[in-house]
């Protein structure tokens, strides 16, 4: 019988193996690149709803009903999120005997102060309809969930009073445009929070609708990342928590750079030694409000002046005086991801002339803390002189400050609506609110360099951070 392969082929294979195996073993090869972009989640294939959605829709609730016919669980899922409740889970805080919740629904900030009593306008950024029904009724009804706020093309959809669709909106067209949320959906509220473009965050504003790579390396450039590429969503629960509206945050609930930049070290060993005490953002978000300015101070005590000319960036009669700034260095604090303090309605004012709306937790001795960049927003906002706590005025709507320009009536109205006692005497207190900055990330060549922090002209105040001196000379922690 003739063999299928002559025996010498075996020898040939052996010879080739003898050569190839060692050569391939010793051949220098490039380290396998750990490509962060490969972790960007793949989105489900878009289903065009143009032919599925039929209408006709008279109200937002009509649209939601249609959505729920197929997406049966969507409303229930949505109603379990803070986007719906505007309130955090319960926290036990050391300065209160009872657990507290924090959120737009029940607490204040140092921008527009609070939404309670101001639902008519504030809820234009709520993912729900029907706030004219009152909070309890509104919250109980799944049909009030506003699917379109997050899923419609923002070119054909918009919201107005009490969270309802703006009158000019063609609800059928809006409903047919639904898709995975884009930066336009998120940006509508998160870029314009606090009453206008770039007011609140130093790192989120309308410049991110069409960002260049130099503005944000993730959202600009080839990856064109959308918010939901990092803020991964499961059953409408969106990853990532706003520290200003929480007390502590489980790291699992937070977005972190390491989700995609896994084991990605800098080529320079010196930079890697920083990672134990410096957050990624500290170097890679070297400046805030790169294109559009953000508000850094807000003085409510100047509001209501007759005859003073309004100017969007410096003074508005209804709001008072502001300072906007752009392309400026953040404030640096040790930060472990939690708040050390969050002002709860009724809390007393700070003793030393500053009341903190929130105060990031962490210190040089806290091994979980890293130096982190913040936007500090300083405000002068009303407080009750006798009761020694911050007040929350009713501003919008009938009888609100924006109509009457009378603070007393605004606080009295608030006492009715919120139940916060007003003694009849108000003043203005300085408050600090810290906003962690994590967007507008810059590529390596635009990140902070050694001399940005170290040396004569460095931007860090080392002694305030708890170091004996510049750690390049005095050593780190």
């Amino acid at each position, binding site marked *: 019988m003739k063999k299928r392969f002559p025996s*010498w082929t075996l020898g040939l294979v052996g010879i080739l193996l003898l*050569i190839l195996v060692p050569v391939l073993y010793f051949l220098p090869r490039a380290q396998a690149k750990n490509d962060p972009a490969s972790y960007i989640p793949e989105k489900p294939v878009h289903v065009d709803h143009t032919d599925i959605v039929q209408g006709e829709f008279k109200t937002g609730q009509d649209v939601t009903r249609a959505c729920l016919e197929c997406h049966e669980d969507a409303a229930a899922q949505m109603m379990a999120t803070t986007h719906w409740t505007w309130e955090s889970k319960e926290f036990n805080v050391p*300065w209160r005997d009872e657990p507290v919740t924090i959120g737009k629904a029940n607490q204040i900030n140092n921008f527009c102060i609070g939404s309670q009593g101001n639902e008519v306008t504030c809820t234009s950024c709520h993912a729900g309809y029907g706030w004219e029904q009152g909070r309890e009724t509104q919250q109980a009804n799944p049909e009030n969930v506003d699917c379109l706020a997050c899923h419609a093309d923002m070119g054909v959809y918009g919201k107005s009073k009490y969270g309802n669709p703006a009158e000019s909106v063609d609800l059928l067209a809006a409903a047919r445009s639904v898709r995975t949320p884009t930066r336009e959906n998120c940006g509508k509220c998160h870029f314009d929070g606090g009453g206008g473009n770039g007011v609140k965050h130093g790192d989120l504003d309308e410049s991110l609708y069409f960002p260049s790579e130099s503005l944000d390396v993730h959202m600009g450039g080839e990856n064109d990342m959308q918010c939901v590429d990092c803020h991964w969503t499961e059953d409408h629960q969106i990853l990532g928590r706003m520290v200003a509206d929480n007390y502590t945050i489980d790291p699992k609930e937070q977005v972190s750079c390491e989700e995609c930049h896994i084991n990605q070290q800098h080529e320079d060993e010196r930079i890697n030694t920083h990672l134990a005490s410096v957050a990624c953002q500290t170097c890679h978000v070297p400046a805030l409000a790169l294109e559009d300015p953000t508000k850094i*101070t807000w003085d409510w005590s100047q509001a209501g002046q007759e005859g003073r000319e309004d100017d969007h960036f410096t003074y508005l009669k209804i709001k008072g005086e502001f300072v906007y700034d752009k392309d400026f260095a*953040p404030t640096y604090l040790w930060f472990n991801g939690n708040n050390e303090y969050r002002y709860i309605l009724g809390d007393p004012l700070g003793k*030393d002339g500053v009341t903190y709306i929130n105060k990031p937790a962490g210190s040089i001795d806290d091994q979980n803390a890293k130096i982190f960049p913040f936007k500090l927003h*300083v405000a002068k906002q009303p407080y009750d002189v006798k009761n020694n706590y911050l007040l929350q005025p009713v501003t919008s709507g009938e009888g609100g400050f924006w109509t009457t320009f009378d603070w007393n009536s605004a606080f009295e109205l608030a006492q009715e609506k919120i139940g916060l006692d007003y003694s009849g005497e108000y003043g203005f207190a300085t408050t600090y609110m810290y906003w962690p900055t994590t967007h507008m990330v810059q590529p390596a060549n635009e990140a902070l360099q050694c001399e940005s922090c170290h040396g004569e002209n460095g*931007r860090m*105040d080392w002694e305030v951070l708890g170091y004996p001196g510049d750690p390049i000379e005095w050593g780190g922690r």
Partner: protein
Amino acid sequence: MKKYTLITLVGLTILALAFGINAVLAAPEPVPASQASVLHPDFALLDANGVNVLESNGAVSTIQTCGQCHDTEFIVSHAFHSDLGLNAYNGNSETLNSSSGLFGEWDPMTYRFLSPAGDERLDLSTAEWLMLNGARIVGGGPAETSRNGKDLTNLSPNKADPETAILNEDSSVSAWQWDESGTMEMNCFLCHLETPNNEARVEAIQSGEFGNATTATLLGLNIVSEADGAWSYNTEAFNAETGELKNDLLGIQDPTNQNCAACHGEVHATEEPLTFNACDLDYPQTATTGQVVSAQSINDSGVNLANKNELDRSWDVHAERQLQCTDCHYALNNPSHASELQSSNPEHLVYDPRSLEIGEYLERPDHNFARGESAQFNVAPEYKGTMRRCENCHDASKGHADWLPYIDTHMEALACETCHIPQMYAPAIQSYDWTVITTDGSAVENCRGIEGTPNDVTSLVTGYEPVLLNRTNVDGDTMLAPYNLITSFYWVYDDASGNARPVRQIDLEAVYLENGKYAADIVTAFDANGDSQLSSDELTIDSSAKEEAVKAKLTALGLDNVRIEGMVQPYSINHNVTKGEYAVNDCKACHGADSRVAQSIKLADSAPVMPVFDGNNNVNGTGEIVKGEDGALYYQPAPANDKMYVFGSSRVNWIDWFGALAFAGSLLGVIGHGTMRMFAARKQPKGAVRTERVYMYEPYRRFWHWLQTFTIVLLLFTGLIIHRADIFGAFSFRGIVTVHNVLGIILVINAALSLFYHITTDKIREFIPHPYGFFDDAIVQAKYYINGIFKGEGHPFEKLPTSRMNPIQKATYFAILNVLLPLQIITGVLMWAVQKWPEIAGGLPFLAPFHSLVAWLFGTFIVVHVYMTTTGATPLEAMRAMVTGYEEVEKHEPHEEAKKVKKEKK
């Protein structure tokens, strides 16, 4: 108090304390921390007599003032910055260099010549030398002391003595009154104040008021002011009770980079976009090399730099990393650099506690600073190589471990700067032509690395790639390092004693200029386009007519043997280091066609004379100075002259020619032979030869043969790629080197095992030619190849499993296995060993060409060997046998002649 209130309060208090100061705005402006030492006490300012200046209103004496606590005498006597070569001054008037320092070493760029005593024509007297170099002189040394060690103030004015004379503008000479001008003490303030007034200091020096220079350094600090030539001290700056100066006004500090910059070159430490003064000898380090010390990113600078946006690296990585000049150039007895001092300990002594205490150091700090081995600074050569160099901080074997093969070899041959300063981004001086002068009496200067006039905002800075030259370190090692080359041309004459002297600037002005304009006869001689103006193109000596015209006028001034000379001087580049990712890190940058190692550099656009390479330094100018087709002058490095062999770039031409000829010759030979056989075969009747199937090659023979075949062919191929990396651009140089090495090891193992097999089985005998009758047999075999093979005759020797080779084969294999193969293995192994022992067996410059030569011979052998296999029963029969083991061999009576031979033997 409730628990939470307490915690809140404590927290609030801490934060309020921390942030309350910057209460309102978000980003606190960084306040530059004062560098002034808080430790330095207040002290009295004393004059030269040791009297408080508040009483005497005299000039400040640093020797007296600082000498209250510091041993100023020690400091001055241990400071080459002060000495500037005075100690080494030998007064030798036969050469242009009478010292190795600024005081006595002639610099063709600054040009003026410090006249030794007894010179026929006075050029620079000591006083004028001080004025000319004032910006770079710290005081003490030649500013106080005469060449033979006396105080300058003790010299009596004498216009015949260059130490007490001055050359006037009209060429006359006057005496210099040192007691009027005063002398300059070493100026501690210049380097130890935060903001010394260097401008006022230089102005005082340049106007010849040497005694006022130190006090002028304090002007503008609210301490002292000048009115009508007298000093007036601000009493508010002093403590009323003690009469001591308030220290915070001075800001006494360790020298910062800015202090060093005052004399050395451009340093930039603020956030303002960087701009610099290029090709300006007031910033010598920047002018001569383009070195700029700044932490700023190049693309943030204010320089109009080509491709600036892509340059996101800092000007100098060490400045970026916060290093100060003094971190490497430290005071040699500074106890904080004790680890360097301890490096001379005996080996068994790990640490020696007997070092200076900080207090002792502060009293007597050694002001001879640690220094490198640059080509341009030769003062106090005994301190060369004392500095922290790259390897004192960086471990190259670890830093390059992840990518660079042959690390030791690279580090032996290359200074770190060679790769880590790949490009200069500031212009540097290219040439200085003093054979002609401009109307303001200066030389015609040319800059490299810029398109347009230096320091003009519309000029495009391109930067330049330094030339790589071999330098010899003080320890005798040689290595490639980056340099700028500056070429100077100048007129020289012989003075009455026959010593060559540069023609004095004042004489050049007399020749070229009349009332601030070019003299009419000069215009006539130089004006090519007849517009009665001298353009910059015309202002060069490019014809013998021009040369003769100037020469005649110089001779008329009484100068003998006037001639043009030129000199090429290397300037070391050690700063502006960049980190690995921006360094030269592509193998082919050097191992390829346009190798960086052999890259030439332009010396001058035109040359009135061929310059010589300055030998008065540690650089080996073994390359060639050549005139290009464009008329410009180039320096062409010749790595081979420095015993360098760079794979992919270096080669020995005759070996390649010889090898290629041998290879091509054998190829032609076998083609010719084969063609003739083919034609001959047609005439021969076919099938005449009776063959028989024989089991010729057992499996191991076939195995080792083919393994060796594959490895040798691949070795030749990869070797060729390494040898000529320039024509095999598609391959990774580094990968091919690895493959070549691995194949070499496979070949050696295979050869060793095969040898073992042949010895143990006694089959080695087959390969050993029998000396008895060898030549007869060989002649028979050769005759067969020349003649019989064409006639269809059978092979003269029968191929048998026990004796497969004919005599010629045996001889050939004997040579290959005993000569070529061992040679190739030995040279290959030695080339590998060069990593550890660079000089072994002549080093790469010998081994590598040898290895190439043997490789060519191997290639030649393969051609013939393969052809010979076709001479079997059928052309492919032998090859088939080596695959399957069975061969059809001729079964015939031995050839007639062979039979005869055999009979005769019997």
